[in-house]
């Protein structure tokens, strides 16, 4: 296989094997001698095995083969890390979506409870049902979320407590309200403010923690490069060095098997890097596209429900609800910002923005009526469910935004899965290339070693 330039250099005989030390059994002191004798013999064997040109060849063989195998392992580890980071990013995104759904359901339950309260007397059965649905959905999701991310457990346990307290206070508010007792309103206010004081900060922490986890994992995809390129570089240097030394020593320009192994590793490094960089580009697109949409829409919905609660609370406060209206304005600003972001990312969010501005128009009308002293008409507009009422406009926004949110979540998750689906293949390809290169190194150097027998 090797290209012959001149006759092979004359084999140089290795040094004469050192005579084996005596191994005759001796009592305790002799045992030490024997042990050091065995070690000495082993060292001598290794020295003889590695000495001279054949010994150096053996060293080159070991170094090249080891570097090749290590390349295989490290490259595989690089792809495994990238793949792991991707799938963890996916899992964390799913958790994030779950937490935002919990948040949405809580503010939705509160919005419905406060609105139903405004109706006075017997609350409408369908609103009652909506409240119950939102709460049971939230508590189901809390269980799911706790199962999916152990790091969230402590916060979710607290959240569960806050939820139980909240629903307890709302029930007391209802019970008192049904008896016509004004203390019911106080229980509802306490429930609402307790929810905002305890549950919502917990959720904010949870959401932030999971957003950070997603970001960490997205960034972690780049670590795959380091494994792949560093191990590729080391292997190429070692193999290249071996080839150079062999060429000098054997007067053959190229050791073909070693060269093939080296080219294999070079190709695997280049093509593998390209594959990883493709994944990186795809993930970047997801981050700036559907993932950003998902975040924006989820946050828009949360702020929107918060605004809706505050609309009712403003009316319940009846004339001294300035603080609640201020909270409405702040929440509405958030909604506008998030929806602008979502629309900039995708036209699909446009219907949500239209529906939201329809709702804000009704809200302005409610405020106009209430500020003008017509509290009763304001309430009628706020609690009605007919065409053009606050509730029906808000429902339109709810439907439009939940639809587009669902589709952007789907898109994020399926694109993340697609981006990572070649990674396992690459992992095995690189591992196999490493092993094959090691075999090539063994074969190539053995050929040269044969010439010394």
């Amino acid at each position, binding site marked *: 296989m090797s290209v012959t330039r001149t006759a092979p250099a004359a084999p140089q005989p290795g040094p004469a094997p050192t005579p084996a030390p005596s191994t005759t059994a001796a009592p305790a002191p002799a045992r030490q001698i024997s042990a050091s004798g065995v070690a000495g013999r082993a060292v001598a064997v290794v020295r003889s095995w590695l000495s001279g040109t054949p010994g150096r060849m053996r060293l080159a*063989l*070991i170094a090249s*083969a*080891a570097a090749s*195998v290590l390349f*295989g*392992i490290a490259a*595989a*580890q690089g792809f*495994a*890390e990238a*793949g*792991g*980071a991707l*799938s*963890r990013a996916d899992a964390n995104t799913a958790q994030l979506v779950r937490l935002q759904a919990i948040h949405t359901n809580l503010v939705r339950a509160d919005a419905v409870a406060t609105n139903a309260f405004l109706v*006075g*007397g017997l609350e409408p059965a369908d609103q009652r049902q909506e409240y119950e649905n939102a709460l049971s959905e939230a508590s189901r999701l809390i269980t799911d979320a706790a199962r999916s*991310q152990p*790091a*969230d457990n*402590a*916060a979710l346990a*607290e959240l569960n407590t806050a939820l139980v307290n909240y629903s307890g206070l709302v029930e*007391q508010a209802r019970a*008192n*309200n*049904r008896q*016509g*007792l*004004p*203390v*019911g*309103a*106080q*229980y509802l206010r*306490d429930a609402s403010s307790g929810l905002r*004081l*305890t549950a919502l*900060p*917990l959720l*904010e*922490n*949870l959401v932030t*923690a999971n957003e950070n*986890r997603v970001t960490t*994992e997205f960034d972690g995809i780049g670590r795959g490069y380091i494994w792949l390129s560093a191990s590729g570089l080391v292997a190429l240097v070692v193999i290249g060095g071996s080839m150079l030394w062999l060429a000098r020593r054997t007067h053959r320009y190229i050791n073909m098997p070693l060269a093939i192994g080296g080219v294999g590793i070079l190709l695997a490094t280049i093509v593998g890097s390209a594959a990883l960089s493709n994944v990186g580009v795809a993930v970047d697109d997801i981050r700036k596209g559907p993932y950003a949409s998902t975040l924006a829409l989820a946050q828009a919905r949360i702020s929107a429900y918060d605004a809706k609660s505050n609309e009712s609370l403003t009316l319940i*406060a*009846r*004339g*001294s609800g300035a603080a609640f209206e201020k909270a409405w304005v702040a929440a509405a600003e958030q909604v506008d910002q998030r929806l602008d972001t979502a629309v900039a990312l995708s036209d699909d969010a446009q219907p949500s923005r239209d529906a939201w501005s329809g709702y804000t128009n009704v809200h302005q009308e409610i405020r106009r009526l209430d500020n003008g*002293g017509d*509290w*009763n008409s304001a*309430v009628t507009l706020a609690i009605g469910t007919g065409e053009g009422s606050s509730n029906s406009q808000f429902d339109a926004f709810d439907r439009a935004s939940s639809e587009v949110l669902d589709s952007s979540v789907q898109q994020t998750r399926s694109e993340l899965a697609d981006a990572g689906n070649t990674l396992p293949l690459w*992992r095995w390809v690189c*591992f196999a290339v490493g*092993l094959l290169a*090691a075999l090539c190194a*063994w074969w190539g150097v053995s050929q040269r070693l044969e010439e010394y027998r």
Partner: protein
Amino acid sequence: MSRRITIAALLAGALLLAGCGSSEYEATPLPGATASPSPAPSSAPTAAPTCANELASYAPANEPEGAQLAKIRKQGRLIAGVSADTLLLGARNPVSNAIEGFDIDMLHMVADAIFGDPNKLELKVITSAQRIPALTDGTVDIVARNMTINCARWQQIAFSAEYYHSGQKLLVSSKSPETTLDQLSGKRVCAPNASTSLEKLKQFTKVVPVAADTHTGCLVMFQQGKVYAITGDDTVLAGLAAQDPYAKVTKAPAFTAEPYGLGMPKNDPNFVRFVNKVLEDAKADGRWKAAYDRWLAEALGPAPAPPRPVYGR
């Protein structure tokens, strides 16, 4: 040797590939502990300003209408600051959504005198602490919210003549043996912020004062076992006791005098004179007694003689 290395490498590789990528995350942080209802700041009760006769208001007279009344006529309704959760005095009826009570009836009389229509009235719900700010910043034209006439408040706003004579009492659980604040040393007792009840409560130094926004807020804490008792005017406590079968107003006599007046902005005495005329007429022609009988008689006994107006300011 190289073969052994290869085998070892194979094994290591297989292990690596099998056990790739598990990340442990730090636990999600919990937000800081939330505050539970804290005892009201125990500032030493400051010496209340005194004046010759706090009950003295402006005598009704045939003066021309002042700026305040003109403004109210122009806006087409009387805007009043009231309570929506003080049963019997001013409370939202959860069934009809209307705010009703003894205080509210006084306002209907004033609206009737201005417009000839008792319902030309816009009710703004305010807390105890908002009563004086709402008047000084012009949010409301008049406040009818179990407001005690005293010298300190006269410095910021004006009062009508006294329209009801109340006094501070104590509400405890129906099984509690205690009847006075003196017996409650070390116990938590609730009163609303910026109320005369809270000021008086702070004079009982052995009691732990707890403040809430409203008396109803106190009732919620009482029902949750966060406070042992509530102190306030007999009228207000009667309304609280009516909402909780396990609460009672103790039989001990009132330990303060709480003359109620309608609060108005300080700048226009003529409006106060106008309102005083309305109250005087109502006391004389039986409308005052009718309102008392409708709201308070059941809880507080048969109607006393209406408080005699004092003028001379």
